[in-house]
């Protein structure tokens, strides 16, 4: 069984995003970029399924600028077998990404596609679900545990009230939550080896997919700023403040 893992190049999670003065977006010039953290978890899960003998090949795919090659090399260094880069100089919306991924699913027929639940830049949380719809496959979103049992997969999901378990017929689409696993670091020898693993380059046109955005960003602004308040000296002062607010009175 093949596993397809879409990985997105995004602002590093440790960087505080700054809105550009002209209100057109977030300033990404000279900002550290990394693989979306949920996608690292997805790559890790695919590798574990391969180590267990359930998966045979892991294909990483990214849609973005040429620089997304770095993200794919990271996936290869972690343990993916080959990569596909679909180059687009402009940002592709989740719907467009899902349509491109659906084409790759058609070509490669993976038993599982494992995506992140959310990209930490657009915070859309929709690409996996859209891919599932477009391919007519079941979806196991926000997964914290996967168990492949023959041609079904049992998915434990993080939901609002706790955990939920569902059973999906395979092929299926999975999106990862934080507790699914802890991703490994790529070792130096594996980083070297990754350089010679195959990486195909494509364009959206190769797949005949129209990626014209449906949403127009009119403006990007900073949220209302909170200002630091006061510090109290001790618990008594805190209690007095709370009681003044009618809390714990």
């Amino acid at each position, binding site marked *: 069984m093949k596993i397809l893992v879409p990985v997105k190049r995004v*602002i590093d*999670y440790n960087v*505080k*995003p*700054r*809105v550009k003065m002209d209100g057109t977006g*977030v300033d990404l010039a000279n900002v550290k970029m990394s693989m979306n953290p949920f996608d690292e978890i997805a790559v890790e899960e695919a590798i574990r399924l391969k180590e267990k003998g359930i998966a045979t090949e892991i294909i990483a795919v990214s849609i973005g600028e040429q620089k997304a090659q770095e993200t794919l090399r990271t996936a290869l260094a972690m343990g993916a077998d080959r990569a596909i880069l679909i180059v687009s100089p402009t940002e592709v*919306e*989740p*719907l467009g990404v899902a349509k491109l991924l659906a084409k790759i699913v058609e070509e490669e027929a993976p038993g599982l596609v494992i995506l992140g639940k959310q990209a*930490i*830049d657009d*915070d*859309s*949380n*929709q*690409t996996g*679900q*859209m891919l*599932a*719809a*477009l391919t007519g496959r079941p*979806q196991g*979103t*926000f997964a*914290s545990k996967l168990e492949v049992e023959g041609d079904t997969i049992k998915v434990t999901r*993080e*939901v*609002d*009230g*706790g*955990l*939920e*378990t*569902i*059973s999906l*017929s395979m092929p299926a689409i999975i999106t990862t*939550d934080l*507790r699914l696993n802890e991703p490994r670091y790529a070792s130096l020898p594996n980083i070297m080896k990754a350089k010679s693993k195959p990486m195909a380059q494509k364009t959206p046109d190769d797949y005949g997919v129209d990626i014209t955005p*449906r*949403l*127009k*960003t*009119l403006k*990007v*602004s*900073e*949220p209302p700023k*909170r200002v*630091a*308040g*006061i*510090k*109290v000296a*001790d*618990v008594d002062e*805190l*209690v007095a*403040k*709370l009681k003044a607010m009618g809390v714990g009175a």
Partner: protein
Amino acid sequence: MKTLVWVEHENGAIKDATLAVVTAASKMGEVHLLVAGSGVAGVADAAAKIAGVGKVHLADDAAFANALPENIAPLVVELMGHHDAFLAPANANGKNIAPRVAALLDVMQISEILSVESEDTFTRPTYAGNAIATVQSSDTKKVITVRGTSFAKAAAEGGTGTVEAVASTGDKGLSSFVGAEISKSERPELTSAKIIVSGGRALQNSENFHAIIEPLADKLGAGVGASRAAVDAGYVPNEYQVGQTGKIVAPEVYIAVGISGAIQHLAGMKDSKTIIAINKDEDAPIFQVADIGLVGDLFKIVPELTSKL
């Protein structure tokens, strides 16, 4: 414009999240509801009483139990033949269903809206809430998820909607529900609690978390939250997590105990009315957003605070 709101319900009761979505929908046009589930006629009757609601579409079939998106999405698509917008809460269920609907309709979803600027223009948070985007949709049908803390709740009573049964689109046979471990708690739900006490990595272990955080929460009638670090370390289960990728909360009072204030955590709580932080590091970023800060050891401060309230 005619909108269709997905009604979230559990054990025969409508979840609060739905009421904020109704308010968002009412800013766009007429509000119709969809109650899908198994044995949910009573839910539909209750939904018809929500203020401002028109028609309630009732889809009663075992296929719709447990909100499996593989079965619900085709039903919504069917109903979207005569609605212009579909809205669901930006929570686990809404985020699971709405994008599946959007793709089937060939529509780009507008995720987690904070406001309705016009029928086609909305604001939404990106980059962990550090950048608020105003977006305009060119799709003829809109698919939207709604951040509950950004809209007032519609009144649960006073409406005069009518219930209309709709045909089931059936079980697609792709997925099935196996079971759930839903924590039972007497405490208020995080997303609607007036006061929240949250604990972080500093609590060190599960025993401390329960012994330090819970008595304070009990005293205040508060909900209990946690940082990702506390959840990952197993002090409390996943449903406690507040943040960019956990729950978004906006209580009157948020008390952060032993939480550093990473941007991913702030993303989930910085719209709280009053933030109180207890941390031994006076330079912890949480103090930059806190209205009231107390620097010191939580293991001394919190028990003393609990006893003095």
